[in-house]
């Protein structure tokens, strides 16, 4: 009860923030009512998915300050659990998704325990390595379709199937991921005010001080890593049902890991709204630039070039990301 109250309590944000958040939420809820192209819809779903990935990443990467570049392996675990269970044993999504989260969390304990002996760059690179190892294994594992991937047949189920999350229209997917999105915000809002959240922030500021305060640094990190993992794996399961065809190259690629981390870092790591802003700016920009400049004008890769320039600028000028700029502006105003 206390936790729910804490999750719903946004009172430490300025009122303008809440107003903007309210407007955006209303817009998100009403979006499908407006006329839109399927492309816009797909972009919005992407935006919501990446916001959730970013929120997950933000718990360990933002609040904890441990830059994790291997999140794709958990996307993969989540996606594969959902897809394998559905295609092989006809297990509905609402059962397989928690199972996927469970497997992902187990795996995160296995690799997280040794991994968190490392710090900084070493940790970041090691997470990449584990992700690539898992991807290579999945690419030869015949049970999960190896490199061919797994297909959720469109004719085996009769949409709309709410149990298995098989729909024909994207709008159903939109509302489901939107629900996850709001739940995710509430969870992170609770998390940042929880005991673990405070512990993490003190670890981020100074690990030795945190240890001297009696915080079990290693364990706190491993626990948070598991939370981040659960988030990512959940969206991974959703991804499997939405895309209906998954393969290691797609769900476990390093590019995905990087994108997740970059979006959160760009929006502002360590703040509640950061990952959402990051995804909200970058995903539409990326898909529309790709569509206009890439597909229409034939400039392949131009979307990512502009994207990269923004990243470089932000990292050189304001490492705290877009949210950092907002806060800086605000601080100047207050002065």
């Amino acid at each position, binding site marked *: 009860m206390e936790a729910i109250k804490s999750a719903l309590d946004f009172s430490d944000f300025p009122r*303008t923030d809440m107003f903007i958040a309210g*407007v955006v939420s209303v817009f998100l809820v009403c979006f499908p009512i407006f006329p839109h*192209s399927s492309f816009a819809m797909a972009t919005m779903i992407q935006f919501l998915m990446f916001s959730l990935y970013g929120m997950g990443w933000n718990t360990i990467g933002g609040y904890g300050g441990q830059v994790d570049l291997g999140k794709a392996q958990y996307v993969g675990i989540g996606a594969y659990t959902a897809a394998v269970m559905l295609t092989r044993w006809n297990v509905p999504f609402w059962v397989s998704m928690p199972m996927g989260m469970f497997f992902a969390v187990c795996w995160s304990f296995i690799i997280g325990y040794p991994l968190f002996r490392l710090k900084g760059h070493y940790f970041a690179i090691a997470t990449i390595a584990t992700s690539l190892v898992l991807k290579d294994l999945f690419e030869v594992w015949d049970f999960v379709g190896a490199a061919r991937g797994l297909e959720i047949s469109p004719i085996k189920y009769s949409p709309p199937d709410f149990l298995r999350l098989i729909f024909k229209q994207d709008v159903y997917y939109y509302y489901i991921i939107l629900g996850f999105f709001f739940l995710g915000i509430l969870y992170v809002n609770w998390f940042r005010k929880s005991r673990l959240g405070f512990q993490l922030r003190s670890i981020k500021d100074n690990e030795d001080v945190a240890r001297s305060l009696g915080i079990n640094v290693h364990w706190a990190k491993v626990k948070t890593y598991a939370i981040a993992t659960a988030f990512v794996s959940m969206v991974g399961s959703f991804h499997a049902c939405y895309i209906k065809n998954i393969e290691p190259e797609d769900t476990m690629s390093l590019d995905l890991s990087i994108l997740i981390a970059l979006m959160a870092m760009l929006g502002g790591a360590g703040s509640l709204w950061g990952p959402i802003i990051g995804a909200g700016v970058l995903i*539409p920009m990326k898909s529309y630039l790709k569509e206009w400049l890439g597909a229409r004008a034939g400039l392949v890769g131009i979307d990512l070039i502009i994207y990269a320039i923004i990243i470089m600028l932000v990292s050189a000028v304001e490492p705290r990301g877009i949210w950092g700029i907002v806060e800086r502006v605000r601080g100047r105003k207050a002065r």
Partner: protein
Amino acid sequence: MKSVLRFGAFFVGILAILVLLCPPGGFAAGEVKIGVIYPLTGGAAAAGRELRAGAELAAKIANSVMPDLPMTMARNSGIKSLGGAKIKLIFKDHEGNPTLGADLAKKLILDDKVDGILGCYHSSVTKTVSAVCEQYGVPMINGTSTSPALTKRGFKWFWRTTPHDRWFTKDLFELLKGLTEGKVRGVRAVPKKEIINVASACEKTEWGSHVSRLIASFAKEYGFNLRKSLLYAAKSADLSSEVRSLKASRADVLLFASYTSDAILMVKTLKAQRVRPKIIWGQDAGFEKPEFRSTLGDSIQGILTRTVFLPKVVEIKALAGKVNALYKAKTGNDLGGASARAFTGVQTWVHVLEKVGSTKPADIQGAANSINIPGSELVVPWAGIKFSTSGEELGQNVLGSGLIGQYQKGPDGKMGLEIIYPFDVASADMIFPFPGY
């Protein structure tokens, strides 16, 4: 405070842009729009160019009157039964990425409102694209993907004109059996123990991994000894450890399923490692691209590839010669397996549309299921096009057939493919064993 608000407005604005900007979908009267999804960039871009040229040529022939071509679609301009509606091909580039392909298919169906889909070369992409088409009830004709699994999924909106790998791989083992029995033109019967050891290396996605399995099962059936079967990533920049592994297996027959750049790399590495098998056979795709020939030059003498079309077909089929001349004028290359099949794919679309006289998906479905295009209409040496409508395979053309060609140096000093199999149409003596690069 103001700037925070301004920032918020900017954020909302970006989201709002999404709503306002729907890709424009122009509806010109008298057009039938076919979405064509091919790998125009990426590792198979060379194939993409060929496919595109083949499809464009077919659309051009369908849209204009060419009385000297003995085919139905050249006789009138556009689709006659649709009031002369022109075929419009909307090309999209899937880069060899299945998820991107599915995305593009969705976009074509919902935003561009195409009447049908053609594509996609990579079997892995065809798999996802056909799933999208099936879901939305939009007909899709596939001309170039040969993974047998594609037509075994019970899809009702998917038709494939090309024969698939089960036939091709069987052809191969028939050829090997023929070698031991002395049926091959110009080669005396080879004792089976000389070619009994077989090894395969296939690219690891949908297409290659199925070929690999087929090779394993046929090898067992025909009594060959499969020493090694490798899967590799088509994007590899280096195949030397794969090649060394093949070499270590001491196989007499090396079998490959490779896309363009990896096929070239594979043969280059085989040459550098001095691997000397008695037979090298490629499962079409990379092994019959013009790039393969131009890059590797004379060192491909004696390499076998399965295909459905090679320039020698011109000698037994007059129509193919005429179309080939048009294609050569357009691109400078001869028609190949990919371009000929892309041509046939568009042609099948034209015949289907001509037959139904409407663009309603349900009508198209009925027409496609009952269509019967005689072999004399086609550039490829098939008996015709007729889709199976029952049994295990739905929508598979049952009248197709394959060829096996061998690179041989012609009298003009140019490397060209000669027909080796089927034995009764062989155009040259087979070079056996593989002479070395």
